[in-house]
């Protein structure tokens, strides 16, 4: 998962405040949550010596862009209905702590993932941690999948 630290390492680290944030670290956090964009850091955009960093940052941040819309893709043919994503997704756990959170099939309709007829189905996708104001680059459904059936684009 991309961390604010990882992003910070690629910034000028001069705390020049030209981005209107108090520190480069604060700007890194803002980048991660997509409230700010790379282009809002003038030194990074203008100065020759940051070209490499800029390119790296763009690659790192690219997947975050997709997360602005519902970019969830489930490759049904790859899904074995194992339920790993059902139990690992933080939204499932928060909205159904004693069902999905404990390894059972979901006990209410507020969850994102559930398995129907042996295949995973997604709903309430707007609750995904990849969307909204405090979005993070969550991978809690991607990494536990044994067959790479879940993808965000």
């Amino acid at each position: 998962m991309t961390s604010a630290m990882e992003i910070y390492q690629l910034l000028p680290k001069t705390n020049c405040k030209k981005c209107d944030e108090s520190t480069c670290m604060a700007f890194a956090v803002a980048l991660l949550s997509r409230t700010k964009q790379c282009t809002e850091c003038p030194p990074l955009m203008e100065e020759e010596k940051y070209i490499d960093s800029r390119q790296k940052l763009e690659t790192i941040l690219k997947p975050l862009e997709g997360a602005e819309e519902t970019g969830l893709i489930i490759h049904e043919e790859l899904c074995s209905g194992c339920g790993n994503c059902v139990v690992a997704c933080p939204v499932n756990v928060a909205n159904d702590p004693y069902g999905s959170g404990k390894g059972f099939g979901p006990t209410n309709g507020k969850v994102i993932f559930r398995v129907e007829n042996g295949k995973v189905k997604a709903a309430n996708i707007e609750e995904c941690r990849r969307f909204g104001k405090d979005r993070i680059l969550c991978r809690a459904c991607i990494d536990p999948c044994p067959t790479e059936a879940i993808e965000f684009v």
Partner: protein
Amino acid sequence: MTEPITWTCTGCALLCEDIQVFIKDNRVEKVEHACLKGKARVYRCKHTAISTVDQDEVDVNTAISQAAKILEKAKNPLLYGWSNSTSEAQVAGIELAQTLGACIDSTSSFCQGITINEIMNGSVPSCTLEDVREKADVVIYWGADPMSSHPRHLSKYSYFPRGELRQRGYEEDRTAICIDITESRTAKICKGMFFSIPPGGDAEFMRALMDGLAGRVPKLSYDFDVKRILELAAVLKKAEFGVIFVGLGLVYSIKEEFDLISEFMSTLNKFSNFFLIPMAGHFNMRGFNHNLHEKTGFIHRVAFTKNGPVPGVEYSVVEQLKHGADAVMVVGSDPLASLPLSITRRLKDIPLILVDPCSNLTSRVADVTIPCGASGIEVGGTAVRLDGRKMDISPLIRGNGLSDEMVVRRIMEEVS
């Protein structure tokens, strides 16, 4: 929408008890929470079995009478299968074997029987899957790939769920380790904790780990980073509640020196707190071991003789099929698909009876086939989960045939 029925899945020995099945007009409409394997189980096989004698369709009574005749005439009948039947049918089968003076064996004979035996005779400590979910902080899949064999194993019990003592879930509270010869689907989830060993390298790896635990420098004949073994030993030592899931990869690799398992467990438990659970496959494999043990004191490979039940490798299904049995009744299994062809070829030469809900490879060569209701779908009863816990199985839909237990009991009536 119809109200769902809560069902216990008989797709594998995990016996997931939280499945929701929607039924309309005695037909399954939808199933929730079951994995793909469980779904296939609920929706049943496409080719259901029919009653036959000499491959000609007959009524079921004729087939049952013919089966009874074959078994009565045989000097050394073998009753085999049982892992896909409820405990009630298994008990009936054991009684029939006793009545006939037959050999009885199950698929556990060449699967997890050897591990289950160690647990049942108290040589190694075991625990329940609920213990795993609530308490386990270190789990090892050794020669096991539950993501391919028991799909909900990690999500329901062993890794992902939040447990009483593991509130923060897998990310922080649990370590999953995989020891295997290939990077399986399970190994992929264990990421940095996958230990890739050469085929047959398990015993040595076990000894090396014991060395590591005891503070000696491990020695291995194959190339392996000793530092990683020492790191693993340190993780095991620190475990509060550890569980080793024994897969067939490990069983087959160390079957000739299986005592090593109990030696390893007692060494490990000098430093830590570990339990062992066998990855039994078919839903009631372990039930057969329990039921036969209750009756005879042995878990499988038993001959009922004049002097009572006798165990022995010569009564194992493979030895009996090669030489010994002069008639075979198979219940709920497909030996032609699941046993070596070099061994099952002889089934074509001796009288063969098959009791199964589905038509399979074995039914194509059987002298008598008798259909029965599918356990857990049309027939209820009890079964024993892979960790030894007894579970109730309720039927889902009405079948129009006999249960396997009834078939066995009808045969018993005719032979005695």
